[in-house]
């Protein structure tokens, strides 16, 4: 795992991001992911520091924009493994528009939403998933609104193909879900209940202290518990991940905290497959097409040869430029 580890993490001691990082390092090791073929994309927040702590390609982007960047990477390089680290504010607030359509596009990537129910990096502001009544810098009298339920939202978007929830304090379940999400061909959305020891140290205490409060969803197509975990988390329910209606029911029940794979559908097509080019374009073909277009405006040689010479020289220069350099070089006609 050390081979994949980058800099030393600077998260707080006790932060759930450490567990998530460990799970990702373990995934990289177990899957032997080539570093040059793996990209971690993040937005802004504590969660989004993650790419810095891995020795892979990383893109620490703008607040709320991790998903469009990840989609751009995937469409241009579908051969790369793309993993997105985003937070509750990054994904469900400023990035909500991107999030909904990213689910719909179902591009093959794994999205980990570190949900600590607060804007932590900026020192305690209420986020869309903050519990109602939470006192913060932006809600001194307590958050007025009921929190958004990311699972219900994700399950209601068309083309959703993988929705799961995992707690950061049960590393085995967390790893199992992340691994299955990684292997799922499509948009794998995993909401990770992540502890913030600094600003909300007791938010998940009821679950940590009483394992009965966590409902573990087991199924041969989902996750299975080994004997030691089964001894501790005895509140289990068999749930077929392909049952969308039951998934929605479980996700929307306020009295339950289901953990496991809520929904999985391997038949939803991925956007990058649907819009795959039927033909590859070589530079020679692109040059041919461009020249054909330019020929429509070619000025025919006049008697003194002056008019056409300049344009011919331009075309020749453009053709030479295309041969030597990237096609994206701007030209007068394009501006």
């Amino acid at each position, binding site marked *: *795992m050390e081979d994949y580890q980058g800099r030393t993490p600077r998260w707080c*001691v*006790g*932060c*759930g991001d*450490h*567990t998530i*990082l*460990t799970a990702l*390092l*373990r995934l990289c090791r177990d899957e032997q992911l080539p570093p040059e073929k793996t990209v971690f994309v993040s937005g802004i927040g504590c969660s989004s520091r993650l790419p810095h702590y891995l020795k892979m390609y990383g893109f620490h982007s703008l607040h709320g924009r991790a998903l469009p960047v990840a989609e751009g990477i995937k469409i241009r390089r579908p051969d790369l493994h793309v993993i997105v680290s985003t937070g509750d504010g990054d994904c469900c607030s400023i990035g909500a528009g991107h999030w909904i359509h990213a689910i719909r596009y179902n591009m093959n990537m794994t999205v980990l939403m570190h949900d600590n129910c607060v804007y932590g990096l900026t020192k305690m502001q209420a986020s869309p998933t903050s519990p109602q009544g939470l006192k913060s810098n932006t809600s001194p009298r307590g958050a007025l609104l009921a929190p958004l339920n990311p699972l219900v939202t994700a399950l209601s978007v068309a083309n959703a193909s993988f929705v799961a929830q995992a707690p*950061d*304090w*049960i*590393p*085995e379940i967390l790893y199992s879900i992340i691994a299955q999400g990684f292997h799922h061909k499509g948009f794998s959305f995993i909401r990770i209940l992540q*502890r913030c*020891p600094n600003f909300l140290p007791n938010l998940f205490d009821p679950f*940590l202290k009483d394992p009965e409060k966590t409902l573990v969803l087991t199924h041969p197509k989902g996750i299975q518990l080994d*004997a*030691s*975990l*089964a*001894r*501790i988390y*005895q*509140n*289990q*329910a*068999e749930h077929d991940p392909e049952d969308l209606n039951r998934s929605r029911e479980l996700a929307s029940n306020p009295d339950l905290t289901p953990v496991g794979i809520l929904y999985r559908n391997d038949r939803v097509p991925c956007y990058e497959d649907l819009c795959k080019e*039927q*033909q*590859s*374009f*070589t*530079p*020679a*073909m692109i040059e*041919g097409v461009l020249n054909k277009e330019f020929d429509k405006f070619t000025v025919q040689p006049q008697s003194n040869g002056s008019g056409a010479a300049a344009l011919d020289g331009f075309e020749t*220069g453009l053709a*030479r*430029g295309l041969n*030597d*350099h*990237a096609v994206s*070089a*701007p*030209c*007068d006609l394009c*501006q």
Partner: protein
Amino acid sequence: MNPQPSINAMNHATNGPLSIHFAGVADNDRSRTAALNRWPALLRRYRELASLRHDYPLILIDHGSCRGIESLTAVVNSLLHRVAPRGPTGERMRRHLLRLEQEIRSLAFRKETGRLSRLWSMAVANLTSQPDLSTEEKQLLQQDFDGARSALDVEGEVIGCDANTADRVMRAMWRRTDGARVARTTAHLCQLGIRLNDLLRSDDLESDKSRQPEALQGAFGGRFCELIDFQAMSRTLCGNRPHGRMPANRRKRIEWALGVLQEQKFFGVEADTELYEFAFESCSEALAEFKRRLPRMVDVIKAIRVAALELEHRYRDKMHDHFFGRFDAGSLTSEDIRWFPSYFVSLRERDCDASNRANLIEILSSDLPIKLVFQVDRLLPDTEGQSDTLGATAWRTQLASMAVNLGSAFVVQTATSNLCPTAERLADGLAAPGPALFCIFSPGEDSGLPPYLAAAAAIESRLFPTMVFDPGEGDTWAECFSLDGNPQRDRAWPVHSFTYQDEQMQALTENLSFTAVDFWATDPSFADAFRPVPRRLWSEEMVPLADYLQADDEQNSGREPFLLLVGPDDLLQRVVVTSAAVQFAQRISRRWRRLQELGGINNSHTRRALDEARQAWESEKRNLIEESRRPSSTETEFPAAEPSIALRVAAPEAGCKVEVPAPVPHDEAWIETPRCTSCNECTNRNNRMFRYNENNQSCIADLHAGTYRELVEAAEACKVAIIHPGKPWNPNEPDLEELLRRAGNFR
């Protein structure tokens, strides 16, 4: 139809029917003339083929359908299903569309060629310009035709059934099937070429040439160039250039691979490359070309593999140079050969000389991706009664069976009448790796029947049955061989009901078999084999040929086999067949029987095994019955069999709690490492007492590297409560009582 025997028209042989059967002597020309223009009774209903809905004309579909061909009937049926609503309007549209279909069919029968849209427009123009239609009727017709036309989503070439149909259909299907595969390979090679180019270009960007002022200016574009000092830029970049250029041998290797991929002529990677031709008219030519192109194929495969290794930066000179240095034609696998387009050879059996036959067998015994279409024009011997010493007829009719026995080629035998129902299997054969043989009976106009009917009759009469052999399906006959597509496969001859009127105008129905001799009767050159028998000479000794063939010699003694034919005046006639014809039918029947065995129909081995098993079972049962009837002589008591005790453990219901015994507490400190969340709490406190294992989860490194207090505090700080301090190891540590009390929370 009036079956009254035309007593005046017939002239019977002086020796009577029996002698005709045995002697097969032609005694007068009038009889011969009358024997012409007769059809087997079962084919009579298809005489006006142009007015019947059947599988022709065919449409060679441009895009969409995976089969590549569809019958006009199926297209119209699909259209009707979509556009003809229930009710009177739907009925009217259905009628109009069926008329349109009929008109298009008539055009095809009149040898009008072209695309469906063209024939559709012609048929619409013909129908709407009929003089006896009122204006309103014309408007309704046009409206319905326009509605159907807008819903029509099929386009392609319309072809009728003739001697060239098989070649046209198979060629079109081959282009479609192979074309899709070749397009995928071409796209893949284009991708490889682009990426190899990218590697070379990124290497070029490291070169001195790319840092010259002219090159930098060219990359910058047209605007604001005057503001940039490219000379200075060039000096700066050249001075600080990182030295990371590609090794020369690697560059040379990539350039070689790229060159091969760009210059090869198998796939259209470069737009103006003249590609190889893959359709041939002879086996010899195809084989020769394949062998001639083999070195180029080796180069292409090498280039693909080198490219894949280089793009993943996995090429190792020491290992791969040696491997590719020895890579030759013998190293090519069947997977490698599947990269390339398949070869298509279309042969007519009359043009197939000895050299072609030998090469054909060589191809069928190999792994070469060559698809052979063997068109048979004629199934019957050239002269009646001539024994097939030269093997010509056997070659025509038995080639598929010979190929099946070779075991390596995909084989389809069928006739042009069955191209639509077997389209999927034909497509499978064209897509299969390795060789494929398509034996297709394609009669022309000279066969005595319309080509479609002659083809259908050949299948019906078992003379040229449909069969498919796919060696890729498995190892057993049941998996590989199929006689699907033949009528009534479990019978020796298909049986159909036939209705006619007798002299009293009463409708009578009989079951008639369609035998190989019925097919024989359609060929005018064999008219001598059949002699009509006048009504007055019909006797009890005359038996239908099918019954005659089923009976043995003893039963057939004194009998005369006959066929029922229908003349042009629709009179039903009994014609006696010669003994040569009977032997022919027996040969065909035996051949069909052997095919049935291979296809698992009435398989003799299975029947024998079943019989033996049945006899053994019956014998055992009989013995048991006899034993039970015998009074028992002793008072032996047999203890009742104890019921087997099944130990069942009820599976827990979903959602219920699983009761598992709790772990036994022990005195030594321990950590539930698998549950560690790697939060650094304990390692930050004492990284000598606690350390991370290979999974980045905490475990006890050295218990004595810290105090019991540190252990208890770490347990209290652990958010997931996985540290269990156990009992202290140093009894002299201060405040042990309080620490033990606090540690008690973590037992």
